[in-house]
C-alpha cells in the first residue's frame, strides 16, 4: 500500500481527498501546514506528496523547496495542488521543484492518473 502525505489546511478538502484516496487503496498521512509537512515527510518517507500551495505558517512552494533540498527527501515526487489555475502558478510550481501540478476542485480521475504516473516512474 503506497504511502501518500497530503498537505492541506482546509478541513473539508482534507477530509474529502483523504477518504477518497484511502478508498482507492492508498495510505494517507496528513500535515496541515508547510512546516509540519517537511517534518512528517522526513519522518515517514512517503512514496508521494500532495502539496496544497496556500498553507499557513509556511506555504507549499517553500515546503517543496525545502524538501527538494534535503538529501533524504529530494527524490519523493511532489504534486502541487492549487486553487488558482493561473499559468503563473504552474511556472512557480515547476520552479519550486514540483514534479507535477493539479488544480482544485480536484477531479479524482485526473489526479489519480497523475499520481499513478509518478509512482510508476519510481517503480513502486
Amino acid at each position: 500500500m503506497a504511502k501518500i502525505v497530503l498537505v492541506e489546511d482546509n478541513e473539508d478538502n482534507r477530509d474529502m481527498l483523504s477518504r477518497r484516496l484511502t478508498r482507492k487503496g492508498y495510505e494517507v498521512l496528513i500535515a496541515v501546514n508547510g512546516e509540519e509537512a517537511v517534518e512528517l515527510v522526513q519522518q515517514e518517507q512517503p512514496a508521494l506528496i500532495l502539496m496544497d500551495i496556500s498553507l499557513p505558517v509556511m506555504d507549499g512552494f517553500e515546503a517543496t523547496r525545502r524538501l527538494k533540498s534535503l538529501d533524504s527527501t529530494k527524490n519523493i515526487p511532489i504534486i502541487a495542488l492549487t486553487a488558482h489555475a493561473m499559468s503563473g502558478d504552474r511556472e512557480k510550481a515547476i520552479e519550486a521543484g514540483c514534479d507535477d501540478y493539479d488544480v482544485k476542485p480536484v477531479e479524482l480521475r485526473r489526479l489519480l492518473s497523475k499520481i499513478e504516473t509518478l509512482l510508476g516512474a519510481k517503480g513502486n
Partner: protein
Amino acid sequence: MQTIDLLESSGFLNEVSLLILSSLFFVVGLYHLYLYFHRTTELSEQTRKTSEVNEKLSELNLKLSEVNTKLSERSRELAEASLAKSQFLAHISHELRTPLNAIIGYSEMIQEEVEEKGLDDFIPDLKKIREAGKHLLGVINDILDLSKIESGDISLYLEQFKISTMIEDLRTTAAPVIEKNNNKLEIRFAENVGTMRADIRRLRQVLLNLLSNASKFTENGTIIIEASRENADQSDWIVFRVLDTGIGMTEEQKLKVFQAFSQADTSATRKFGGAGLGLVICKRLCQMMGGSITFESQQGKGSTFLIRIPASVSDVRKETGGFDLAADAAYQRSSATDGIVLVIDDDRSARDLMVRMISREGFRVVTAWGGEEGLRLARDLGPSIITLDVFMPGIDGWSVLKELKADPDLGKIPVIMVTMEEDKTKGFLLGASDFVLKPVTREQLSAVLNKYKK
C-alpha cells in the same frame, strides 16, 4: 516807424516783450506739466492694470495647484480603491469557492460510495447537487474573470504550442457538454496549421466556451471546430471556427450577443441556463491577445463563431518587479549542480523576488525569515551561498552575520549582505563576502552569485 521808435525810446518795448516771452514760456511750461501728469496717470493706470492682471494670474496659479493637489489625491484614492477591489475579489473568490468545492466534492464522493453499494436510486439526485454546484462555480468564475479583465488585472502567459494537440485535447474536455444534447463533434484542421504562440489556457477557455454554447443551442446536431492559418497584413493569423446546426439567432438576438447578462433574451436564459457572461469574456480575451471574434447566424439553421488570433501573440504588459513572464517555454527545472542559496529576509515580497531571480540563475533557493531559522537551515542544508538582509525590524542582521561567521561549520559559507547603505566597512569587518544594494536588480545579483558559486 514812429510808434516803434516811441515804444523803443520809452523802454516799454522791453517790458512788453519780456511779458510776452514769459507768458509763452509759462504756457509751454504749463503744457509740459500737463503732459507729464497725463503720462503719469496713464502709466499708473497701466501699472494698476498690470498689477490687477498679475493678481488674477497668481489667483489662477493658486487654483491650479489646488486642483493639482486634489487630482493627485483623487488618483491615489482611486489606486487604493482599485487595489482594495482586487484584494476584495481575491478574498471573496476564496470564500465563495471553498464551500462550493465542498458541495461538489462531497456529492461526488457520496455518489461514488452509493454506486459501490448498488444504491442507484440516489444517483440522479446526487448528480443534480453536483451539477448545481458546478454551475454556480462557473458563474462565480465568470464574474471574477470579467471583473479582473475589466480592471486590467489579468496578464497573459505566452507559450509556443502545437495547435492540433490543443484542439484534440479539447475533445475530451468538451465531451460531456456535447453528449448532453446528443450532438456530434467534428474536428478539422489544415495540414499547415502548425504551432502558435499564445496563452494556451485562455485560448482553451474561449474555444470551450464557444463549443459549450454551440452544444447548448443545438440538439441531435453537429458541432464542427476548425483551425486554419492565414496570412494577412504581412503576418500570420490562426483562424478558429466553431459551427453548429442549432437554432441560430434572431436579428434582435444578434445585436445583444456580446453584451453582458443579456444572453439574447431572458427566455433563453431560463431554458438554457448560464449567466450570459461567457461571450463578453471571450471577446475581451481575444482582444487582449490582439485578435478578434465575429459570428454569423441564421435562425433555425445554426451559428458560426470565428476567432482570429495572431500566430505569435505579443504581450505588451509585463509583470512588475523586473520578472519577464513572456518566456518561450515552460521553465526548465534547474539542475542541482549550482548549489543551494539560502535567503534570509523577513519581508515576504522581498523573499519572493529573490527566489525568482536566484532560481533563474540556475540555483536552488531556500528561504528563512529570521536569524534563528536561518542558522538552523544553514546547518541542515549546507548552502553554498547565503544572502542576508541587514535591516530586519526586531532582528539584527549584523548579529546573524557574526553568528554565522563564528560557527566552525558555517563560517566558510560566503555571506552576501543585502543593504540600502553604501558603507560596506562594517560588513566587511564582520566577515561579509560581498554586498548587493537595494533595490536588487538581476544584473547585480547574477554577478555576485556567479562570483561565489562553487
